[in-house]
């Protein structure tokens, strides 16, 4: 059997719409070697220098780094800022009041809802189901409005500060947020029913990209990918940071191990997040000021090391901070979940057809602006043709 076609899929990212893949340009290339229709081998080439942010963090003060680290990812900026702020709080042994912790959970869960909505919309678009894509995006606008009411901005919510949050909620805002959350719950239940019964979706997603539980821990895959293969890892249950120890919620796991299970895990997590937001809004404690006075925060930080983890919508995000007692940190290390998920997952494409490759890649939830272009090289004739990933998914190659 000789290789007749080599499909190169360069995937590029652009700042600031680069979720979970930090900083500037990020070319990620999946070199897929295909024989006829079946994938035989996958090489993953990356060339991104997200470490521009790590070197940059060593030159700015701890407070400026809150805003810099919040701009690593556009879709999950709240969780990045939260992880950094908690790592600094562990260093200084500060415990924020309960009201601030509940508000932080509210902001992070709203972000989880909008991130899961957008990846499901993109999965529908890759399959060719454009109507569903448009409907999900229209309903996502309600969540963006909720984020605007809570934090002051639709996308980049600069909401976290050392010792609490930057804005508080009053009675009027609480009622508006509760209305939005009740409306979106009905929408999500409708979409879950479509994903379970619709033929377009079930035939393309079921049985595609199966990963066994022992492969998940050996290859270090995280987040909804692990939960879709029956491994129960969730940092919210494990570390119980912020207010997650007091808010009741379930960790969703599925046994089917394929792409459909991964998307269903995300939908059911969205429903759990809606319940969590409602619980937070109804049970907000008032034990202390949620907003610290930023003019009185300390300027010098003690020496030491700390390690904080957070459950981003895509998996487990970790920050490691090493400080030697000055105004700037000595080392900041950021490990985003897509780093592990995308680079270590080259083994899972083998044996499926070319049209399944975009489906599997989307079910891992990579960055969005990166699903752009694929180059098809016909080795015999030596010609190169540029096709978009959507055409590849529809089988037009």
């Amino acid at each position, binding site marked *: 059997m000789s290789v007749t076609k080599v499909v190169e899929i360069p995937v590029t990212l652009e700042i600031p719409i680069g979720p979970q893949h930090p900083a500037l340009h990020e070319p990620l290339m999946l070199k897929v070697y295909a024989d006829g229709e079946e994938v035989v081998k996958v090489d993953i080439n990356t060339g991104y220098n997200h470490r521009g942010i790590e070197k940059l963090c060593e030159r700015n003060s701890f*407070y400026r780094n809150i805003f810099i680290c919040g701009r690593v990812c556009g879709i999950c900026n709240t969780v990045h800022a939260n992880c950094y702020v908690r790592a600094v709080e562990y260093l200084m042994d500060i415990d924020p009041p309960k009201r601030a912790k509940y508000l932080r959970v509210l902001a992070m869960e709203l972000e989880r809802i909008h991130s899961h909505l957008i990846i499901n919309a993109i999965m529908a678009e890759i399959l060719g189901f454009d109507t569903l894509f448009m409907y999900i995006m229209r309903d996502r606008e309600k969540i963006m409005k909720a984020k605007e009411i809570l934090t002051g901005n639709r996308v980049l919510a600069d909401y976290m500060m050392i010792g609490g949050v930057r804005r508080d909620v009053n009675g009027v805002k609480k009622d508006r947020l509760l209305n939005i959350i009740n409306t979106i719950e009905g929408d999500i239940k409708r979409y879950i029913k479509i994903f379970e019964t619709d033929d377009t979706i079930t035939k393309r997603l079921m049985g595609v990209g199966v990963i066994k539980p022992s492969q998940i821990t050996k290859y270090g895959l995280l987040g909804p990918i692990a939960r879709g293969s029956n491994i129960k890892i969730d940092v919210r249950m494990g570390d119980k940071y912020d207010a997650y120890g007091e808010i009741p919620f379930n960790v969703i796991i599925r046994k089917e191990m394929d792409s459909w299970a991964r998307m269903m895990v995300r939908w059911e997590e969205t429903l759990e997040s809606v319940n969590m937001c409602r619980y937070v809004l109804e049970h907000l404690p008032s034990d202390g000021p949620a907003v610290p006075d930023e003019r009185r925060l300390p300027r010098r930080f003690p020496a030491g090391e700390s390690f904080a983890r957070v459950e981003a919508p895509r998996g487990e995000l970790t920050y490691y901070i090493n400080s030697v007692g000055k105004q700037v940190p000595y080392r900041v290390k950021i490990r985003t979940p897509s780093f592990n998920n995308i680079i270590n997952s080259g083994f899972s494409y083998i044996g499926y057809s070319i049209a399944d490759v975009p489906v599997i890649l989307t079910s891992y939830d990579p960055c969005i602006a990166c699903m752009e272009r694929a180059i098809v090289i016909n080795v015999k004739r030596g010609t190169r043709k540029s096709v978009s990933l959507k055409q590849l998914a529809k089988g037009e190659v």
Partner: protein
Amino acid sequence: MPGPSLLKEVLQRFFSKPVTIQYPFESTDVEKDLRGKHYADLSKCIGCSLCAIECPADAIVMEKLQENKKPKQNPRGLYPVIDYGLCVFCYRCVTVCPVKAFITTDNYHLASPTKLNSRDITLKTLPEKKR
């Protein structure tokens, strides 16, 4: 073929108004506390430069006022000028100012073909000096 529930909704929506807001002709309704265009109020500013030091994007530059225009509380005569092209609207300057000298608005219409900064609108807030 979409499932029965989606087909009904598609037919209903076919005859109603699209949800797109035609931006330049209609404007989106935003919250009153949206983080929009902000500028310094020189009747309160004391020229301490904390906003310029704390800005994560280095978008604030301190400029000198003319000698005869310095207000009483600003002996050094420095005032902040924000470059809206570099600003990320994190509002760190607003929250860290010791005398709360920033005026905030919800104006987000900041796209322009030339560079925008806050010099003119800030200078208009200078208190009138009686001679």
